[in-house]
């Protein structure tokens, strides 16, 4: 069965634990990678072997926190935009969900300005949320086991 790769980019250890645990209830996810902040995420994406390990089909699911040290979620997105077509080409095909504990309207609007950001979620990430994401963005693909 085809699996979906997941990146959880959040500086808070407990938030990552909770996200990973929730995702673990779904069989469809493989290879949940936790990253501490935008800096580590950028390094990973630019590293060799990333393209192999993280194939674009089906697109990876990326949970991106906003408030992180060293490089915030928005700073990470800006950084990715500047990297150029070959990376962003496959990069933008991924499903990127911004996650945050903030209900700040400005943050939400800012997230909407990036066309490859597919959603904006307030923490915590619940099983319901994951189900909705799967249905919305992966439902059209055939051979995925979407139920938890």
């Amino acid at each position, binding site marked *: 069965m085809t699996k979906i790769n997941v990146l959880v980019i959040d500086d*808070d250890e*407990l938030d990552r634990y*909770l996200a990973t645990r929730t995702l673990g209830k779904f069989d469809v996810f493989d290879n949940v990678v936790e990253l501490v902040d935008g800096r580590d995420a950028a390094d990973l994406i630019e590293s060799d072997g990333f393209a192999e390990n993280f194939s674009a089909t089906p697109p990876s699911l990326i949970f991106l926190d906003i408030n992180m*040290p*060293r*490089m915030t979620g928005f700073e990470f997105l800006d950084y990715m935009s500047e990297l150029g077509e070959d990376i962003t080409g496959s990069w933008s095909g991924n499903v990127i969900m911004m996650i945050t504990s903030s209900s*700040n309207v400005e943050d939400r609007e800012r997230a909407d300005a990036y066309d490859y950001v597919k959603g904006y979620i*307030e923490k*915590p990430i619940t099983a319901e949320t994951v189900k909705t994401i799967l249905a919305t963005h992966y439902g059209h693909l055939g051979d995925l086991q979407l139920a938890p």
Partner: protein
Amino acid sequence: MEPMLEQFRSAFEAVPAAVLVVDESGIIVLANADVNELFGYDTGELVGQPIEVLVPEDVRVGHPELREAYQALPHRRTMGSGRDLFGVTKTGRLIPVEIGLNSVHSTDGSYSVASVLDMSATVAEQERTRRAIDATGSAMVMIDGKGKIVLTNNAAYEMFQVPDGALLGLSIEQLIPERFRRRHVVYRTSYSAEPSVRNMGLGRDLFGLRPDGSEFPIEIGLTPIDQDGERVIMATVIDITERVRSEQEIVRQNEDLTRLNDELTQFAYSASHDLKAPLTTLDGILTCLNEDIAEGNLEEAVTNAERAKALAKRLADLIESTLGLAQAESYDAADFEPVDLNRLVEETRSSLGSLFETQGVDLRNDVPPGCLPMTQQIRLRQIMENLIGNGAKYSDTAKQDRYVEVTTEIEAEGLRIIVSDNGLGIPSESHDHVFKRFRRFGNHSVEGTGVGLALVKQHVDRLDGEITFTSSTDGTTFEVVLPSSGPIDRTSQVELSS
């Protein structure tokens, strides 16, 4: 002589006023009943006496000369108006009088006829008015058509701090600062041309000037008065220094309130945001805990229970430091006093004691003992505790001889307090955000709330000081400059603007 007098006698007796007739050598030849009554003499007593008996003693000596001068060129005239002319009665009492004088020529010589008007009632009336004007607390200044001051009251003398009477005869322009005088003459003359009851100085651009050169803001009410066909202007002057000061105080307080309100709004936003985060996580952990129990995964359940407790404690710490930030506003009222900085650092050493031990960091207090900055102790204490504490918390375990050092330098602007360490340093990307609330950087495993440096900055701002820092992987140095002249007292200055 006799027949003429006889003719006049009955006429004189009939005149309903005090009249007397005096001959060329100043002897009274006729005095009617009203004169006798006025001056307290019996009938006929005055006849044959010199006119000088009715003249007050202090001017009696010069009177004959005046009389002779009049007789050289006799004409009809009025003397005195009650203020400077007096008669004296038989008992020596002085009466204010107005005298009408005329001359009569007859075959037996020339005579002077005088009518004497008792001005007592009028003078008393004037006195009453005078006292009323003086009794009023408002400063009143009356000027004539040429801008000369013709009448003032006590309140005016007090306001302008001049002796009684000193303002009479001055031009009104002398009571205002020089830079307004030319303008004022124009205003005055155009006002005189078309006077009305009005107020001036409502725009707070009018000032009074005292002999010592001091100026004060005034408001003036003008009333035109027609006095015997002559146009005068009565000005009521009010010293509005207090009112201006109060208004400026209100403006200042409004600005303060607006600023505090903005800060409160910002604060409420960031506080709710950052206090909510640990709670959502806590909620998630407890959900996991439930699942762990349901699945019989007790080991994980215990771990999660521990995590939940740690979160609760973190939240409690965060709330406490957030309250500390809010409370820092109220320290404005604290006294400024000389603070022993060396001792303050030692007190920090004992209050943070275990931190230094745990981290294996040495605190070096190089503040000279006599260093006594004039400041608010409570703020300086929090500044030092936070800066020194940070130095210990973020120490670099890879380095030997880890330390936090406190030194001072005296500068022209004030006292420079330097807290330096050889810790982990602040990442360069974060340098712009160092003093923002709830921003933390680097190692999250170290306990901290992200509030400390925001608090330090707020304290430094309130003390009118400055804070800067440099940082690298070799370590961090914070420098706080406290001004040597205490706080700026904003309440005592009234702004004079023209």
